[in-house]
């Protein structure tokens, strides 16, 4: 599934024109990205939570050369699927 399938889904289910549907899909994604960029958690009930986590600097190793390097502090995005989604994925049929 790609963005164009999402555009089709909104076109079919909400009745937007394809052009409007493409704008709306782009906007939904952009609004989520902006919130995450601000460091906000994005919670979609029934689907899951996106959370920005602050990782401290740590010592790592270049797996190719074996050389010890410092991995700088960084912000990473994690997704935690909702309990409902996990259950639906495991208890169907």
């Amino acid at each position, binding site marked *: *599934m790609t963005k164009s399938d999402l555009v089709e889904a*909104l076109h079919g289910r909400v009745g937007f024109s394809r052009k409007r549907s493409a704008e709306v899909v782009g906007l939904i994604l952009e*609004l989520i990205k902006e919130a995450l960029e601000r460091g906000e958690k994005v919670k979609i009930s029934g*689907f899951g939570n996106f959370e*920005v986590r602050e990782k401290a600097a740590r010592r790592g190793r270049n797996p190719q050369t074996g050389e010890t390097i410092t991995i700088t502090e960084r912000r990473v*995005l994690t997704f935690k699927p909702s309990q409902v989604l996990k259950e639906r994925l495991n208890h169907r049929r």
Partner: protein
Amino acid sequence: MNKSDLIKALSDRGDMPLKEARAAVEAFFTAMEEAILREDRIEIRGFGSFCVKKYGAYVGRNPKTGERIQVPPKRLPYFKVGKELKERIDS
């Protein structure tokens, strides 16, 4: 930000009634969820991708009691952040 904040923001930014924004957000996540349940891989450029990972059964332990328990095989949705979003978040 939760789903209703997203709906409000979409209504403002997309210049549409709240009711329409709600229908759009619901349709968006329903389509995503259906794809995950079909175990279809989702790939959204600039955002990230979702796939379903399969884990085999293993013998685990109840951390409270130390009791051994058989954990059945399971499937879990997995998200991998896309390059653009990864960079925007870390900058």
